[in-house]
C-alpha cells in the first residue's frame, strides 16, 4: 500500500474519474462523454473515463489497472447510489493497494438520470456533483474499519409460521435462539386456518409438528405472552430486554391438564374467544386452542372474578391441587439477553371491514370476514366445521367479495396477494360443506404460483360463479321479489357490461392484509424503517429482501409485505441463513465513520456530552477534556456539528470535506 503521508500536499493528489453508462440508465439522460470530458478538465484529475458498466468485473479492473498505471491515489466513480455499489468500488481500490476510503461516489442514477428528463439540466447537475466529489476526495484520508466479535445467539420476534421456521432452522444449526411471542401460544394466523391452498392439506397437520418442535428444542428458549421492550447495541452485540406478562399460571408447574378450566366457576364461557374471532365464548381461564404451544393455560384478569372482586371460590386452584400452578399474585418479569442478530417475524393483521361501510359488515349479521369463515370451516372451530349462519341455517347461496381493503385508494392501495387464492379455497370448501351456489366477485384473478392456476381451473370446473366487478354495495333492500329477505350484492358485471344485483344468504369479505397496528413502534424499537404503508422496509427489494438498513436485523414473513405460507417460510429460511452467515463469520467490520475529540484543542466545555444518545462521550476529569469511546460511537456526527470550538472530527465527514463538497457543487462558472 502506498504511503499516504507522502500525499499530504494537494499537488500530490491524483484523481481517477469514472463515469458509468449503466447501459442507457445513465447514458440515456446524462451526456456521459461530456461529463468525462468535464472531469478531465478539473484540477488534480489524472484520468477520466466512461464505461458501459463500471460495476462489472472489467469496469472494476479498469480502475485497478489505472491505479497502477497512473499512480492514482484518489478515485471518484459517478454511477448509482453509494448505498448500492460503494462497497464494490471500495473493494476494487483495496485490491489495487489503495485504502478503500480514498473513494468518493457520485450518485448520478437515482439522483439524476432517473429523476430528470432534460438532458442538459441533468448533465449540468451531474457536473456539479462530480466537481464536488473531486474537490472532496482530495481531502479523504485513509481509514480502517473496526472489527468486533459477534455473539452467536439470535432473537426471533413473532411465533407465526415465519418465526417458527426461522427459529427451528437456527436451532438445528446449533445456535441459541430466543423466540418471543406476545400471545399465549405460538402458531399465528396459520393455526387458525382449516386447509391451505392449493393443495388443501390441513393447516394443523403441517403446522403443529413444527410448533411442538419449537416447544421442545433444547436450543430454543420459547417465551410466549412476552414482548421485547428495549433493544440496545449494534450488529453482533445487541442487548434486548424481554417483558413476560403474567399469565397467573406458573409456566414450569402447569402441565396443561386443563382440569382448572373445567372447574372454573363459570360453567359456560362468557368472553368472546379471541382465537375464534368471537364466534364462540371462552372462560376467564383458558387454553387458546387445543394444540397451543406451550400447553399452559392463561388467566384473563379482565374477566376473572378473583381479579374483579377477590371473592371467587377459586375452584381452579382447587382443581390444580398439589401442582400449585395458579398464582394470582404473579407480576410481570423481565429478562435481559445478549444476541448477535435479530429476526423480526411479527406478521400482519387483517383489514377491518367496518372501514368500508358499503360491504355491510357489522350491519348485517350474515356478512362474515374470510378469517371468520376459516374458523367456521375448521373442524375444531366454533361450529365444529359446519358452515352455518348465525341463525343456524345453512346458506344456499354465498357471495365472496374480493379486494376488501385492497387495491383501493380509500383504504389500502396494495394488492394483498393471498386473497384471490384463499377466496378460491373458501369457495371450494363452502361448496363442499354446503353445496351452495357460490359467487366470487373479483377485479382481477391473481393466481401466480405453483399449482395455483390449476386450482382456479378446478374451481371453474366445480361450477363456482365468477363475476368480474368490484362490489358497490351489500344491502338488504329489495327491488325484486326474489331479493326479499336476502343480502343483495350490487356490482357491475364488467364482462357483461351491465350492473347486476345478486341476492345471497351469506357474504364473505375477503379482507386484505395490513401491517400490524404497532408496526411503527416495533420498527422504532429495532431501529429499522417502514415503507409508507407500514410494512417493514427491506434493504433492497430484490437483492436484499430479508435484510434491513440496520445491520444484524432481518425480517421474515408478512411483516415485510403480504405473503402466503410458502413465501413466508422461504423468507424465514432466508433470514435464518443471513443470520447464520453473520454469526458464523465470528466477527464483523464496522464503518469507521466515528467521531473523535481533538484532545489538544478540546476546551472541556462538556457541550458535546449530552448530545450523544449512546453515552459514547465521557469527560475525563484528570485531563479536563472530553473523550469519545470509539466502540460505542455510531457515527451520526451530531456532536461534531454541536462542538462550539470545532474540536471534534468525524471520519469521512470532516468539516473541511463537507465544505469542499458544498463549495464544489456551487462552484459553477
Amino acid at each position, binding site marked *: 500500500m502506498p504511503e499516504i503521508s507522502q500525499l499530504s500536499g494537494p499537488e500530490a493528489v491524483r484523481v481517477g474519474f469514472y463515469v458509468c453508462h449503466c447501459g442507457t440508465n445513465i447514458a440515456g439522460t446524462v451526456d456521459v462523454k461530456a461529463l468525462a470530458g468535464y472531469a478531465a478538465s478539473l484540477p488534480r484529475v489524472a484520468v477520466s473515463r466512461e464505461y458501459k458498466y463500471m460495476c462489472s468485473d472489467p469496469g472494476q479492473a479498469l480502475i485497478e489497472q489505472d491505479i497502477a498505471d497512473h499512480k492514482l491515489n484518489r478515485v471518484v466513480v459517478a454511477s448509482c447510489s453509494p448505498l448500492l455499489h460503494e462497497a464494490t468500488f471500495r473493494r476494487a481500490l483495496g485490491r489495487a493497494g489503495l485504502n478503500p476510503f480514498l473513494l468518493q461516489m457520485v450518485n448520478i442514477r437515482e439522483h439524476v438520470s432517473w429523476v430528470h428528463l432534460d438532458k442538459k439540466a441533468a448533465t449540468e447537475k451531474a457536473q456539479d456533483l462530480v466537481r464536488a466529489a473531486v474537490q472532496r476526495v482530495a481531502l479523504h484520508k485513509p481509514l480502517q474499519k473496526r472489527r468486533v466479535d459477534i455473539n452467536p445467539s439470535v432473537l426471533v420476534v413473532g411465533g407465526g409460521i415465519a418465526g417458527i421456521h426461522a427459529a427451528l432452522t437456527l436451532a438445528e444449526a446449533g445456535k441459541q435462539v430466543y423466540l418471543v411471542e406476545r400471545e399465549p401460544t405460538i402458531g399465528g394466523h396459520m393455526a387458525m386456518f382449516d386447509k391451505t391452498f392449493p393443495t388443501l392439506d390441513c393447516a394443523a397437520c403441517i403446522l403443529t409438528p413444527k410448533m411442538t418442535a419449537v416447544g421442545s428444542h433444547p436450543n430454543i428458549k420459547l417465551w410466549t405472552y412476552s414482548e421485547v421492550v428495549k433493544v440496545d447495541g449494534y450488529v453482533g452485540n445487541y442487548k434486548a430486554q424481554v417483558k413476560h406478562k403474567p399469565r397467573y399460571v406458573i409456566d414450569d408447574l402447569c402441565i396443561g391438564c386443563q382440569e382448572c378450566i373445567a372447574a372454573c366457576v363459570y360453567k359456560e364461557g362468557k368472553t368472546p374467544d379471541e382465537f375464534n374471532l368471537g364466534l364462540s365464548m371462552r372462560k376467564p381461564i383458558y387454553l387458546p386452542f387445543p394444540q397451543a404451544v406451550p400447553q399452559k393455560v392463561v388467566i384473563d384478569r379482565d374477566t376473572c372474578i378473583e381479579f374483579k372482586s377477590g371473592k371467587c371460590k377459586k375452584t381452579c386452584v382447587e382443581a390444580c391441587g398439589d401442582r400449585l400452578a395458579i398464582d394470582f399474585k404473579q407480576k410481570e418479569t423481565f429478562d435481559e439477553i445478549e444476541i448477535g442478530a435479530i429476526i423480526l417475524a411479527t406478521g400482519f393483521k387483517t383489514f377491518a371491514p367496518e372501514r368500508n361501510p358499503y360491504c355491510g359488515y357489522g350491519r348485517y349479521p350474515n356478512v362474515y370476514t374470510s378469517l371468520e369463515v376459516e374458523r367456521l370451516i375448521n373442524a375444531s372451530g366454533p361450529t365444529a366445521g359446519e358452515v352455518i349462519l348465525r341463525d343456524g341455517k345453512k346458506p344456499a347461496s354465498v357471495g365472496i367479495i374480493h379486494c376488501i381493503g385492497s387495491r383501493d385508494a380509500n383504504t389500502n392501495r396494495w394488492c394483498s396477494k393471498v386473497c384471490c387464492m384463499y377466496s378460491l379455497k373458501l369457495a371450494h370448501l363452502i361448496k363442499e360443506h354446503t353445496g351452495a351456489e357460490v359467487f366470487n366477485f373479483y377485479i382481477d384473478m391473481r393466481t401466480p404460483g405453483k399449482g395455483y392456476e390449476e386450482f382456479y381451473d378446478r374451481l371453474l370446473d366445480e361450477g363456482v360463479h365468477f363475476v368480474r366487478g368490484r362490489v358497490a354495495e351489500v344491502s338488504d333492500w329489495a327491488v325484486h321479489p326474489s331479493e326479499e329477505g336476502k343480502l343483495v350484492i350490487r356490482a357491475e358485471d364488467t364482462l357483461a357490461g351491465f350492473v347486476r344485483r345478486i341476492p345471497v344468504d351469506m357474504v364473505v369479505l375477503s379482507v386484505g392484509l395490513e401491517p400490524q397496528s404497532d408496526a411503527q413502534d416495533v420498527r422504532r424499537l429495532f431501529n429499522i424503517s417502514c415503507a409508507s404503508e407500514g410494512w417493514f422496509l427491506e434493504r433492497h427489494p430484490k437483492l436484499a429482501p430479508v435484510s434491513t438498513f440496520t445491520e444484524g436485523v432481518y425480517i421474515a414473513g408478512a411483516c415485510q409485505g403480504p405473503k402466503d405460507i410458502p413465501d413466508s417460510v422461504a423468507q424465514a429460511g432466508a433470514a435464518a441463513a443471513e443470520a447464520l452467515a453473520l454469526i458464523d463469520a465470528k466477527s464483523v467490520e464496522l464503518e469507521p465513520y466515528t467521531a473523535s475529540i481533538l484532545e489538544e484543542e478540546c*476546551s*472541556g466545555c462538556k*457541550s458535546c456530552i*449530552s*448530545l450523544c444518545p449512546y453515552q459514547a462521550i465521557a469527560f475525563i476529569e484528570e485531563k479536563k477534556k472530553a473523550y469519545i469511546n470509539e466502540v460505542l460511537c455510531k457515527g451520526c456526527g451530531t456532536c461534531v456539528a454541536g462542538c*462550539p*470550538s470545532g*474540536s471534534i472530527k468525524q471520519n469521512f465527514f470532516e468539516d473541511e470535506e463537507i465544505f469542499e463538497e458544498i463549495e464544489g457543487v456551487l462552484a459553477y462558472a
Partner: protein
Amino acid sequence: MSDKSPDKPKVAFYWCASCGGCEEAVVDLAEAILDVVAKVDIVFWPVAMDFKRKDVESMADGSITATFLNGAIRTSEQESMARLLRSKSQLLVALGACSHLGGIPGLANLFDRASLMQEVYVHPPSTINAEGTLPQTHYQDNGHSVELPALHETVRSLDQVVDVDYYIPGCPPTPKTFLAAVQILLGSELPVKGTVLAPDCALCDECPRKDTKPEKPVFTEFKRPQQMLVDEEKCLLAQGLLCMGPGTRSGCEALCVRGNMPCSGCYGPTSRVRDQGAKILSCLASLVESKDEAEIDRVLSTIPDPVGTFYRYGLPGSLLRRKKPGVRQAPLPSR
C-alpha cells in the same frame, strides 16, 4: 523582525473604524512597554505622535517592519490608508476584534448606509434637520473646496481589504495577549501566515468556573445578567446566562467571567471554525431541553437578538458578512 537585521525593527500603529481601546491596550502594557519600545523604532503612530499621511507615502515600500492596524474598514480614507500601509510594511498585523473580524462597528452591516445616515443625521430626537441635510464628501464654498472621506455601504475586516499576515484578537486584546503576540513576532521563528496570535482552545479551557459546569447543561430559558443575582462561583451557562465562552478563543484569561459577566465572544472563533456565531448557535440550540416545537421556540425566544448576540464582534468576518442588501441603489454621478 529578524535578529539578523542590523537596525531596530520599524513599527507603525494605525487606527481605523474603532474606539481606540486597542491602542489603549498597548499603552496599558505599562512598564513592559518600555522593553518593547527599546527593541523597536516607532515610525508612525498618529494617536501618540504627530505624523501625516505624506510621511508614510514618502517611505520606501516594505520599509516598515510591522504595522499594527486596529479598526474595521468603514470609509474610503480607511481603505486607502490600509492599502498604503500594506505596501509600506513587511508584516501587517490586524490588532483587535474590529480589524480581525469587523468588531462592534461591524454590526452596522445589519443596515444599509442610507438608513444609517437617516438615523444619525435626520431622525435623532436631539436633531432638527428638516431639510434632511446629509454630510457630503465634497463641498465647495467661496472658491474653497473640502473633501471628506466617503462611508462604505459595508463594513469590512482588514483582511477583506488587504492581505493580512497575523491577527491579535480581542476587544481589546489584553495587554498580556498583545505582549505575547509581540514576543512571538520578535522571536526567531514566525508562525504560519494567517495565524491568530492567541491560544487555539476555547475559553472554557482557562475559565476559573470550568469545574462547576455540569455534564448535561440543558436550557429552559436564557437569561441576561440584569435579570438575576449571578452566582459568582458557578458556571454562567449553568445559570442560564448566554456565555459565548465555549465558542470563543481563549487568551483573555476569562476576564469578563471573572467580573461576573458572561463572555460575549470578542476573541473570535478558534482556527477550526469558520463562523463563530453559527457554532455557538448550534451548541446552545442543541442543548435546549424540549422536543416540542412550540416549547423550543419559546426557549429560543429568550435570546432576544441572536445576530447581535452571536455576532457581536464578528459580523463582517462571518460567512454571510452582512444583511442581504435590499434593492441596490442606482449609482450616483461620480464626483
